[in-house]
């Protein structure tokens, strides 16, 4: 290689590498800086010097025709690449990326789809594997740790380290990793090509910053012809790039991005602090522990520091590193047990830093619109999770709620309902948990094709969904988001979609599923001042269809299907009763009457219908008694009889305690049984009654005896797992020979 090219092999996100690199660059005073990175983003490089771009940030490179195929190149402040860029920009030197462009790599579905959005890194295993034998030879079991000691934790005074690394990597690649995969060979060929281009432009001192792994391949260089041959015929797609905020958590290797940073926060300390790093590092742990109510004093921190330093001496290391600080923290702060440190582990090691990108940077208009909205509504993205309780009577909170819902429509799950549901605090409140994740950048770019503002895009997305959704509940689920996202233009297409699907829906279960959320929307919509007239229209179309469809759906079904139907009927009943519309209510009761009266209806459903009617006052005691006798008479199939009574009681024994008339019916019926019939029906009754809590059963028993039992329901009612008990019934049936499964 000529004198003009100077190679600097680094580790991505290595503060020691960065420090050594800066020193080396200063003494070299290059006239051109070439960096391993995507040439697709060359135009964005000058922006790195702009005020307001705060690492951690990433370069997002994506296919313009299919933004889902995207790659991130993350940078921390202490990334050597970032420092090299800053060095070049501050001296107005030409700076370029020289890795194989993503336009040649984001090719087909299979390749990128399998990896998903990934970081622009060397395949981590390639480097680690290559270094492992050397690290082992040096007495380290973890190659990362070895590298840490050798390179990253150095004070960075010597530029010699780069020459040493190059020789080392040369040896590694000659001996161990002689045949890199095709992609690596192409990348290196492209790097060489870019270097040659810079040389031919006449630059005299070219600094090349790349992963240490690649240095041997760039010196000596093969012929230009050979490289052209490797690069020949590469496909090309259109790509675009943008700066996006990144988080420390994503820089760590626990999140699977292979950047090899055990603790980004520690590396930041290594970069920013020259002295008393350990004191600061352990004091941070102490602070976090105190927040978690652990009694940690400064004396603890002092002792932990001393132990860590002594430990480093015992291990014959020049300075304490993460491992020593962790061991010391466990022994001193955690009383020997790692549990306490695990409590704060994530926050201690990863922190919650989220980078920022100025609003005026080139970005998809949608992204800019979001940033503007976030600013206007004072809802900045944060990397750590925060719960927001929105009071919908306040205009600001209502708009915030709308924004969150719109983003959800676009597939950006920034907000998820808090535990206990989004409306756990009443009709005027919405409780959301907010946590910004860097990957949302991809979802936003992808959503850009729907429109230039969040509202526009959300509407377009709904329109598309209204046309393409397959099932009714899929659309109904969205309705709540759409109505409360304050998108009046989106409501009509969705409502039309729902209406047309209601008309053709053949599966009554889908209609049953759709009804309760629709009813809920129509009720809560009024509270919010949303126009829910269209929902009433849908209901007007849906409810009659439902009334017609339920009957046929209840005939000729087995127990499992009946149970499913039963649960949906209960929800529907609840919804229709609360809807408070006389005609719907009347229609529903008529449906129930037909359900309860026809022999052909599945017994469970029949029993339930009888109960619902009785509760609604449509069935007199005498009528119920008649149904009761009919269902449980000798001639009836015992299994049906058991199902009927289960449906009647609907898993609630309390009714037998409080409703004397109903108890009277059961009582009279029981007394009227012949001994044989009683013996026959007893196991079936047991099956129903066994599901009630013991305390309830005891009271029921006492009531039947005639004497009122003192209510002792404060007593523990037992942890009886009904589902588990049910599971053994088929086997017991076989053992006792009570017939098949039907």
């Amino acid at each position, binding site marked *: 290689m000529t004198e003009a090219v100077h190679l600097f092999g680094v580790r991505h996100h290595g503060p020691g590498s960065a420090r050594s690199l800066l020193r080396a660059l200063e003494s070299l005073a290059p006239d051109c800086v070439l960096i391993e990175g995507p040439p697709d983003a060359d135009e964005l490089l000058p922006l790195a010097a702009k005020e307001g771009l705060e690492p951690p940030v990433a370069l997002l490179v994506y296919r313009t025709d299919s933004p889902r195929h995207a790659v991130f190149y993350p940078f921390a402040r202490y990334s050597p690449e970032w420092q090299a860029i800053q060095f070049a920009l501050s001296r107005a030197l030409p700076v370029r990326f020289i890795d194989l462009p993503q336009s040649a790599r984001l090719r087909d579905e299979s390749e990128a789809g399998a990896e998903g959005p990934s970081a622009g890194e060397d395949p981590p295993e390639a480097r680690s594997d290559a270094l492992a034998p050397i690290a082992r030879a040096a007495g380290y079991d973890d190659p990362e740790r070895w590298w840490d000691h050798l390179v990253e934790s150095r004070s960075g005074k010597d530029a010699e380290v780069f020459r040493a690394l190059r020789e080392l990597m040369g040896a590694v690649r000659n001996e161990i990793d002689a045949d890199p995969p095709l992609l690596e060979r192409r990348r290196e060929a492209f790097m060489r090509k870019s270097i040659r281009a810079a040389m031919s432009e006449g630059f005299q001192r070219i600094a090349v910053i790349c992963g240490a792994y690649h240095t041997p391949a760039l010196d000596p260089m093969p012929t230009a012809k050979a490289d052209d041959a490797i690069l020949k015929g590469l496909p090309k797609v259109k790509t675009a790039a943008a700066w996006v905020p990144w988080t420390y958590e994503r820089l760590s290797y626990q999140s699977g991005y292979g950047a090899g940073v055990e603790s980004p926060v520690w590396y930041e300390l290594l970069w920013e602090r020259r002295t008393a790093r350990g004191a600061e590092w352990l004091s941070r742990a102490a602070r976090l522990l105190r927040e978690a109510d652990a009694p940690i004093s400064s004396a603890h921190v002092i002792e932990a520091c001393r*132990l860590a330093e*002594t*430990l480093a001496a*015992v291990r014959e290391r020049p300075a304490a590193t993460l*491992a020593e600080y962790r*061991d*010391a923290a466990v022994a001193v702060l955690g009383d020997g*047990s790692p549990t306490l440190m695990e409590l704060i582990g994530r926050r201690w090691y990863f922190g919650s830093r989220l980078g920022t990108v100025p609003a005026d940077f080139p970005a998809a208009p949608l992204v800019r619109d979001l940033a503007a909205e976030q600013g206007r509504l004072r809802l900045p993205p944060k990397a750590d999770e925060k719960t927001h309780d929105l009071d919908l009577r306040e205009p600001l909170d209502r708009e915030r709620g709308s924004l969150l819902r719109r983003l959800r429509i676009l597939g950006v799950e920034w907000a998820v309902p808090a535990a206990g549901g989004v409306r756990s605090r009443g009709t005027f409140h919405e409780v959301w948990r907010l946590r910004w994740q860097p990957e949302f950048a991809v979802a936003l770019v992808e959503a850009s094709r729907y429109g230039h503002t969040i509202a526009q895009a959300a509407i377009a997305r709904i329109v598309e969904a209204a046309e393409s959704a397959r099932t009714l509940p899929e659309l109904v689920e969205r309705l709540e988001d759409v109505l409360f996202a304050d998108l009046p233009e989106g409501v009509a297409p969705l409502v039309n979609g729902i209406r047309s699907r209601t008309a053709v829906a053949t599966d009554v279960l889908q209609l049953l599923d759709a009804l309760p959320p629709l009813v809920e929307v129509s009720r809560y919509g009024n509270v919010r001042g949303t126009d829910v007239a269209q929902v009433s229209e849908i209901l007007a179309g849906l409810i009659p269809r439902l009334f017609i469809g339920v009957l046929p759906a209840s005939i000729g079904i087995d127990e499992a299907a009946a149970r499913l139907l039963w649960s949906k009927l209960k929800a529907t009943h609840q919804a229709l009763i609360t809807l408070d519309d006389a005609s719907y209510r009347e229609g529903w009761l008529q449906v129930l009457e037909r359900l309860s009266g026809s022999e052909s209806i599945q017994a469970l459903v029949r029993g339930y219908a009888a109960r619902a009617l009785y509760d609604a006052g449509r069935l007199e005691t005498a009528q119920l008694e008649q149904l009761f006798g009919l269902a449980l008479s000798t001639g009836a199939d015992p299994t049906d009889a058991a199902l009927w009574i289960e449906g009647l009681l609907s898993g609630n024994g309390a009714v037998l305690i409080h409703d004397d008339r109903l108890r009277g019916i059961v009582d009279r019926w029981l007394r009227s049984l012949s001994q044989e019939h009683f013996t026959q029906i007893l196991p079936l009754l047991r099956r129903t009654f066994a599901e009630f809590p013991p305390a309830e059963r005891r009271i029921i028993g006492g009531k039947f005896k005639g004497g009122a039992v003192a209510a002792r329901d404060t007593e523990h009612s037992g942890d009886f797992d009904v589902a588990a008990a049910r599971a053994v019934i088929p086997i017991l049936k076989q053992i006792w020979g009570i017939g098949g499964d039907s």
Partner: protein
Amino acid sequence: MKAESSSIPVVQRRPGEQQFAEELSELAKVDSRQKPPRWNLSPWAVVSYILGGKLDNGFIVVPKYIGQRRLIEIAVATLATDRALLLLGLPGTAKSWVSEHLAAAISGDSTLLVQGTAGTAEEAIRYGWNYALLLAKGPSRDALVPSPVMRAMEEGTLVRLEELTRVPADVQDTLITILSEKTLPIPELASECRAVPGFNLIATANNKDRGVNEMSSALKRRFNTVILPPPETLEEEVSIVQMRVESLGRALELPAEAPALAEIRRIVTVFRELRDGKTADGKSKLKSPSGTLSTAEAIAVVSHGLALAGHFGDGTLSAHDIASGLIGAIVKDPVHDGVVWREYLETVVKDREGWKDLYRACRDHA
């Protein structure tokens, strides 16, 4: 060495610094690293002594502790920072063993020892009086009887305190001044005993019955804590048992030859399975007996079996020789543990390949 082994040893068990005197002197020869004040060896050499290894001059140091290296490093580093060391662990996790060898390697003397019990009095930690002298001459330094702790302070060596949490809480707290101020006031003489550099304390405690006498947080703060876990893997536990049985066998002059690894592995497997409450393949659940079933007990079972084999059998360890020890170690509560053991015998031992002899032997003993 040879002459010694043919004659009857003077004591039943010699302290670590005598038993491994050769290792310690070999280590001292190659040890050129920096030593903390009054340490016989450098921290590096102490770690090597405990964990074993081959020295540069080819001498082989026997491992005293088999387990995580970092735990021993933390322990040694703690003592080097003059903070007191607290070793926590279940019974039989080699707490006392490690503390003895730390003291042997660092101070060359592991005999300064206070055994903590519910009856341990302040005198055992501070000082007592020779009452005859006290009455005859009044309070004087001559009439004072120093405790092991006080002697260690004067000589600048390590002192060991076993079962710290058994010691009543108020007695425990006498340690606070000693550990933080490194001084022991003697108000009767209007004087004090100041610790010489090199003084430090290793305490051990069982972290399962911590409730016995919970340490005050003021005292806890004076200690760095290292928890010694039960052996992680079967292999680790087997090698611990084998190593200890061999050295015990030598010490007790057992006539039987060293047991086959297979036999030890079988005993350790039984212990682990019952302790973990599931079979080694993780396929079936087992009841656990009331005892702790520590590695130390496994060692006892093997050496008991060796004694039986040597004195009454053919000199090789057989299933019959270990059966009685095994049952004795596992069945501590005749009712509950008896059921546990019989279940284990019938459901696991009986059907396991190659364990027929053990099954029969245990059945015969039942």
